[in-house]
């Protein structure tokens, strides 16, 4: 369905899409259409690696470090801008840590599966 724009005087078709910078997914297209199961296997592994990278561990360590830094900086001069900035960093990281905890806490495996595949047997809902 092509429409003509009277204003701009340019004709655009609906097939033009904006190219977004997509991370990594370009690499997931090896020419192995004969083995679709292998494709999914790579996907799974990649997803798992990504999941491990975002566990709170890395943030927890950052929080601990930042508290130590803040205490050191403020031991020298409690009212300086550096002291405030250091404690602000602590606050920012604690907030990020609590968001991560909340995000991880909420992942019920069935819910996440059903969000992507609502038509499967486990996920069908019968309202009437």
């Amino acid at each position: 369905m092509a429409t003509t724009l009277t204003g701009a005087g340019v004709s655009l078709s609906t097939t033009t899409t904006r190219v977004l910078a997509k991370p990594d997914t370009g690499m997931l297209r090896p020419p192995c259409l004969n083995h679709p199961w292998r494709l999914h296997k790579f996907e799974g592994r990649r997803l798992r690696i990504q999941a491990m990278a975002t566990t709170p561990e890395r943030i927890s360590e950052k929080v601990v470090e930042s508290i130590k830094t803040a205490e050191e900086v403020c031991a020298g001069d409690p009212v300086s801008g550096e002291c405030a900035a250091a404690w602000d960093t602590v606050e920012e990281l604690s907030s990020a840590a609590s968001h991560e905890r909340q995000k991880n806490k909420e992942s019920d495996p069935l819910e996440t599966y059903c969000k992507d595949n609502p038509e499967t047997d486990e996920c069908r809902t019968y309202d009437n």
Partner: protein
Amino acid sequence: MAMCTVYTAHSLNSSCSISTPTKTQLGFHQKQVFFYSTVKKTSRRGSSNSSEITCSAESKTVVIGLAADSGCGKSTFMRRLTSVFGGAAEPPKGGNPDSNTLISDMTTVICLDDYHSLDRTGRKEKGVTALDPKANNFDLMYEQVKALKEGIAVEKPIYNHVTGLLDPPELIKPPKILVIEGLHPMFDPRVRELLDFSIYLDISNEVKFAWKIQRDMAERGHSLESIKASIEARKPDFDAYIDPQKQYADAVIEVLPTQLIPDDNEGKVLRVRLIMKEGVKFFSPVYLFDEGSTISWIPCGRKLTCSYPGIKFFYGPETYYGHEVSVLEMDGQFDRLDELIYVESHLSNLSTKFYGEVTQQMLKHADFPGSNNGTGLFQTIIGLKIRDLFEQIVASKAAAPLEATKA
């Protein structure tokens, strides 16, 4: 998403609307005009039956601002708000996993931390906190919010809270409702002008301390002293730059310690005040029994039994920083469903679509913090008010071209 309304030149009783695919995302906002002639309709005047469909690009983006200090319930508020409109808000799929943006069908939530001009190392060198306006790029914030309001997609930077660096930008398409949440939505006067509605979450110091303890004690490395030091160190900048924004807000949710329990220091029971500015376009304040009067109400009695410490309501007109406001206050907490529905049935001007909608929304998110006290109640009510505001704005913008074709 562009909404197109069909107006017939001669009779306005046959109007239908179609939606076209989103070309406006590519940065143009155009008027697309189609001409077609209807075959079967007989015109009263006998002239040619041609109808004109005019589509205007998404200039109906409603912008809401939400200001609060970090750790003060903005995310909970966001989740309640997006839930009122339907659907869950999620980070953009396929993008940066540390993105702060949330997208649902109707709403997009942008975190204003993305407009930091200094990253964590930059702030450390200069010795400024994130609360300081020097660490934020208000020009970019104004440009991008203005563009989104006019229906133009933008490439918004991402501030990564984990690494403390500014990541490459992500594309944000203009939504129906744009929510900007953060520390400074109302700080810059130009951005303030763009906001259709603004909310400030004002948490008192004792409650803030109690909430931060709850949040951070599970984290290793933190102790009571470190939490206290953190709050104290940020207080000067907070009082200088963030707190003054509350005078500009259309609604303020103030959270204070309870007055029902003498010498309470647990901070579990809260006294919450919803301060609503009078005279805001499309916003009618919630009231209890009689608008403009002063009411003090304890619902617990013969019809309703409450457990200790009970519930106490107050409603009345006041002045807040020189403005006329109406204040609705709730002290105490809900223990049972029927308390909530009883209270809802006595409040007026809630902008609900059916009886019990507030209760239903509260129950839907019974696991969210504040679901049993005034914070959850007032956040839900504000969410419904925003929905009402949005519908009124859309209706008024649709009525304007209708007037033009009639004339």
